[in-house]
Structures are given as C-alpha cells and as structure tokens.
C-alpha cells in the first residue's frame, strides 16, 4: 500500500494537472469537431461545387491514423501554413480533424434520415430552406445522433493520450513523467488507466442518460 500512497496519492496534484489538460484539449477538439463535422456534412449535401472536395476531405480525415495526423499537423502545417505554432494547438487540431470526418458522416446520415415530409411541411407554411434546417431538421438530427456524438467524445479522449508524444502535458504525459522519475510503472500506469476508464464510463453513462431522456420525451429514434 505504501507504493500507492507514495507514487499515486502524493502525486495527485500532478495527475490532476494532467487530467485538466486532457479535459481541456478534448473539450476544444470536440467543440471544433462538431462544428466542422456539421459544416462538412452541409457542404457535401447542399453545395454542389464543393461536394467532391468535401467528400475527399472527410475520407482523408477518417482514413488517416491519428498518429500520422498528429505528426502531419505538428510538423507539416507550420511549414506550409505557418500554423499551428504551439504543440498544444497542434494537439487539438489533429484530434478535431479526425473526429470531424466521422462526425460529418454522422451528421449526413442523420440529415438524410429525416423524412422528406418534415421538410415539405415546413416549406408549405412558407419557411425558407435555411429556417427549415435550423428549426426543423437540425434539432431532430441532434436528438437522433446524440449517442454517436457522445461516443465520438470518448474516442477523442482515448486518442488524446497520443498528444503526449508532442510534449503536450496531459494526463498521459504526466503519468509517463512520474514513471521516468521513479522507475515504478505498476501503480502509476494502473492508476492512470483507472482514471481514463472512470472518465470514459462517466461520459458514456451521461450520454446514455441524455439519449434516453430525449427519446422518451420526443418518441424519436429506435
């Protein structure tokens, strides 16, 4: 028990700092990914000239391993675009990039699954296509894809452990640093795994509760 106290409990502030960085970088990446995913889905569905570029971009995001994307954003983008300039930014950009590809497809199927009648009923009372999307389509899509969106957040959390590779000081980074200081991996890494597990379980449970409530309320979805 002494080891746990010495290696984990006494280091709790370091681990907590790391966890907060993880939380922050995942939250930013998630918010950006949701917005970008919706944007990409809309381009793919409704903007003819940009349909193919959007499809290629989405497929690129989905097909590239997160590690490759991280390296690419961190080392290639600054050369070409002059941005991002910090490892931290490169970290959330890479995470957002990959998830935006998946979320774009989630949004697209969600939008396509809303029956034509929903749209027509809106047009029939004089609503414009934009108003129809905002007030009628999007809310229904969000309700039906809420579980997938939450799942995508857990994917981001898991992938985020890789940002430690480019020295972003997240939970994984701090945990490895402790291991390198004490040369005692068992307790520290086990505790780290436990933290991730608990966090992801909590997110999934909250997501499921939310989805159940929405479904109950509107009688939508399966």
């Amino acid at each position, binding site marked *: 028990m002494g080891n746990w106290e010495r290696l984990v409990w006494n280091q709790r502030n370091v681990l907590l700092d790391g966890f907060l960085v993880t939380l922050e970088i995942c939250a930013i990446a998630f918010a950006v990914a949701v917005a970008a995913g919706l944007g990409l889905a809309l381009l793919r569905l409704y903007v003819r000239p940009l349909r193919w570029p959007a499809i290629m971009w989405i497929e690129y995001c989905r097909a590239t391993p997160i590690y490759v994307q991280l390296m690419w954003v961190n080392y290639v983008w600054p050369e070409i675009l002059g941005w991002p300039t910090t490892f931290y930014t490169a970290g959330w950009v890479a995470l957002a990039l990959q998830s935006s590809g998946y979320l774009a497809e989630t949004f697209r199927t969600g939008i396509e699954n809303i029956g034509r009648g929903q749209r027509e*009923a809106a047009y*029939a*009372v*004089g*609503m*414009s296509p934009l108003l129809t999307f905002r007030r009628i389509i999007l809310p229904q899509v969000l309700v039906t894809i809420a579980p997938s969106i939450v799942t995508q957040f857990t994917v981001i959390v898991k992938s985020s452990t890789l940002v430690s590779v480019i020295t972003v000081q997240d939970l994984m980074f701090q945990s490895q640093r402790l291991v390198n200081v004490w040369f005692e991996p068992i307790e520290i890494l086990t505790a780290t795994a436990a933290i991730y597990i608990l966090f992801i379980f909590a997110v999934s449970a909250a997501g499921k509760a939310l989805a159940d409530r929405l479904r109950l309320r*509107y009688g939508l979805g399966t």
Partner: protein
Amino acid sequence: MADPAGAPCVEVVDLHKRFGALEVLRGVSFAVDRGSVVSIIGASGSGKSTLLRCINYLEQPTSGEVRIDGEPIGIERRADGSERRRSMREIGRFRRDLGMVFQQFNLWPHLTVLGNVVEAPIRVRGLPRRQAMELARACLERVQLSEKSSEYPARLSGGQQQRVAIARALAMQPKVMLFDEATSSLDPELTGEVLEVMRGLAVDGTTMIVVTHEMGFAREVSDRVIFLHGGLIEEEGPPAQVFGTPRSERCRQFLAKLLH
C-alpha cells in the same frame, strides 16, 4: 396589378407536369372561388397529389400557371410585359397563403402540439409571441385539441395528429386550404373526427381544395367535384352531377368500382 375582387381565389391554368418521360399532368385548368370547396377524385396514380403539390410549388410545374387572387406564383410579370421566374423566397411568401394538410400528417416530432402550431406564425409571419400563442390556441380550439397543447406528437392518435396538422395550417390564416387525402392513413374509426373538422371549416366558408377517397364527404361538402384521369380533367361539375349522372364513361366506372 391583379384585382383581388374580380379574380378567383385560386386559378390553375393549363398545368403540365412531367417526371422524366412520365407526363403526370397534361394540361389541367380550373378555378376555385373564394369560400367554395372543390374536391378532386380519381384513381390511384391519376395525378391528384401531383396537382395539389404543384399548386403550392412543392413540385415545380413543367409549364402552366397557378394564380392566387390573380397573381401567378411562379413568375412575375412586369408592366413592360417581361417575365421573371420567382425565387424560392418569393414563392415562400405565396405558400403562406396556401395551407397544406398531408396524408402522413408530417408533424414536427421535436415540438409540442402548441409548438407545431405556433412555429410558423412566429418565424414566418413574424407575429409577436403572445399574439401568436393566442392565435395558435384559437386554432387548436377549432380542432378541439386545446387540452393536448403541451403533448408531443408521438403521444397522439393519428386522428389527433391530423387535427393538429390542420391547426398548424390554419394558424397561417391562409386564403386556401389544400388537403391531400387527409384521412387515408387513418384507422377507419378515426377518420370521422378529421372529416368533422374539415366539414366545420367548409361550413365556416373556408376555401378548400380537397383530394379525397371519401366520396360521401366529397358529395356532401363540395361545391364542385373534379374527376382526374390520366393527368386530365375528365369530368367536372356539381357533386350531384358528377356522382349522379356523370357524362364520362370512365368516371362512371371509377364510381361503380368504389361502390363494390
């Protein structure tokens, strides 16, 4: 400029609609006076829904015109005689005046009953919230669903959902109500309550175009009946004539088949 006093409420002029090689409407013309009820009957696939959907431009007619109070929906005719196709936005302005009730109700499941009815008055007509609420409540009263205001559509029976859909259309205070087989997807025991509401509207002087398979209703409520066949008006007249002494052989056959 159109003269609303002289022109019929709705005028359909030589309407054609084709889907690829299939010509569904082949030159349909008729007019609906203010306060009158016109029923459209005909076999499945004869183009009834297409005709109704062309009237509010959910389908773009291939050629021909639809006029509301004398003004064409799809094209603007300028004083110098030139013509211009109207944008979606402008067509939306006309659609406010055309209430549509669909066979499948198409209520918005994420909004309450009241939310469904109040949405367009607020967002499209721009009414202040309180005024829109009052209007929506009055419309729900009219279809006798006031007590369901805060329910979500999924909890209502089909008949109740369709009555909400009628209230939603009424809340735009349209010049005309279009009904596309409003009772066809209902269980038989639920059609009565919807027909009752429609009958009430007709009695109140609502201008209505009703696509229906309910011949009893068409006969009793309509001022005029149109029998559509193969994309053309095959028979047209007062219900007593169309149902009693149809001139067209096809119309006679259609009605005879229904009686069996």
